[in-house]
């Protein structure tokens, strides 16, 4: 936290090295978050790039009120949601799975640890209703508090907690073969 504030302070005064340090520190986490939020992974790197571009463009007036990671994670979540919304409008449900597979083949974003079980879990994540997936990804990969996720989802903390728990339950069911994909 203190390290982030120091990096920000230096970056605001023109230090490219400070920005690189911020990028190196969080780009991977943000890619993971975007990868877990999106149905397909091809847009994850674009989202990370957009978030960092907006971040550098706003640095003149940027004021950190919480943790930098939470801030970036919130931006990633907002952009992911927009991205998904756009795609939903653009394609039919029937074409969704086929397109997902096709774009994943082209994607340069992949699971860091490649195993059949994790691939299965990754697929199961995409089966969750978006709010549940978002609650899980932001909690586990974004380190956001339920209260912060609630603000983002414009819902009560209780609702977000329920979404998180329902999402985990559904994942367990899918992985145990209780839910047909």
């Amino acid at each position, binding site marked *: 936290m203190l390290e982030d504030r120091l990096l920000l302070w230096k970056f605001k005064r023109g230090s*490219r090295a400070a*920005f690189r340090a911020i*990028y190196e520190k969080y*780009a*991977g986490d943000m*890619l*993971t978050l*975007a*990868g*877990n939020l999106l149905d397909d*992974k091809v847009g*994850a*790197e674009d989202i*990370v*790039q957009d*978030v*960092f*571009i*907006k*971040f*550098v*463009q*706003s640095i*003149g*007036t*940027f*004021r950190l009120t919480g943790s930098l990671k939470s*801030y970036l994670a919130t*931006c990633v979540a*907002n*952009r992911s949601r*927009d991205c998904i*919304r756009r795609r*939903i409008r653009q394609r*039919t*449900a029937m074409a969704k799975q086929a397109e997902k597979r096709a774009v994943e083949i082209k994607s*340069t*974003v*992949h*699971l*860091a*640890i490649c195993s059949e*079980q*994790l691939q*299965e*879990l990754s697929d199961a*994540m995409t089966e969750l*209703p978006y*709010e549940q997936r978002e609650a*899980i990804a932001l909690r*586990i*990969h974004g380190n956001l508090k339920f209260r912060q996720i609630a603000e983002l989802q*414009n819902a*009560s903390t209780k*609702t977000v907690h329920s979404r998180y728990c329902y999402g*985990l339950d559904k*994942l*367990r069911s899918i*992985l*145990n073969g209780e839910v047909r994909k």
Partner: protein
Amino acid sequence: MRPAENIEKSIKKLRYKTSAETHDRVLGNVLQALDEYEKQKTSADAHDIRRTMMRSRIGKIAAAVLIIVSVIAGIHFLGPTESVAWADVVRPILTARTVVFNVIMNEGDNVPINRVMNMGTQRVRNELLSPDGNSVQVIVIFDYDTSLMLELIPEKKTAVLIELKDIPEKPENVLEEMRNIITELQNDPDVSVEPLGEKEIDGRIAKGFRANGPDGEMTVWADSQTALPIRMEQKWRQMHFVCTDFKFDVVLDESLFSMEIPEGYSELPSGELPIASTTEQDLVETLRMWAEMILDGAFPEDFSGQVYVDDVNKNRKKFAKLQQEQKVELGLKFGRGFIFVQLLKAENDWHYVGKNVKLGDSESPVCRYRPEGSETYRVIYGDLSVKDVALEDLPQ
């Protein structure tokens, strides 16, 4: 251990990576954007202007006000005689302190002008001028302290006092509002701002910026010397407004904002216009009236003030026999559905698809939105039935 056994621990392992080349390319793009940003950061003043003006912060109240003005005034222009075509809706830009400006929609010849005057933040006067600017066709005065709206038709010497009920938020002092915008933007990188360079407007050098936010796009041209806006263009949903002729800190006579019925005017029965309490049923009713009364059983091409006014004008004969009071009542009823939609937020994901749908068609969706906190969407069909539909089951 299968992932299901310790699901949270397994999800933590769901980390994604990309190739070193991609990583370097993304970092390079970000650094390039940083270079460009630093080049464009020419002056602190210009920076503040764009930060202040870029994001459309026209409050929900202002949007509701626009609808009230356009819908009611639109109805008033219906009559058996050919009146000046009212084809535009108008809206004030900012609820500002002692600011006067003109608002026009779809710039061109013979376009009516709406003159907006702000007295403090609680009182606003709208004057709908004829295209030549020589006569005032409709005056609407708002007093947010008392939640009253007074509408005057100078030509007919009629006045209607309407109570605005359940206003959800009071407009803030415009300066406070601008400061709030700056503060918000400091922590909101999701509004993209694009500098447009300089150009001459009315003999002044203006700096331009364009902002793209979730609700639309706003372009601002501001005086490069004084930092005051000269021209603002806004695309908001289907509407396109241009605001010009700004005057700041002008002295405005108190009488311009009086809620007293002027001498010589006859007062029509008062009405009520609930704002925050408008419901989905109001939207359904507006759709029903629009299809039944105006479009002979078809739903409109789009759910916008512009389309509404156009449709009304094309079918003005249908309203020829209505009394003034009935027109006011009708305008208020139409307005409720518009206000309901105006108050929806971006996350409510409002979508209208009623073009070519006929009233009574139970299969075709007309519109949909997602209520706050709901997992499912509310979909209104052509027979005006409303169903809860999951995201994945939404009609295409």
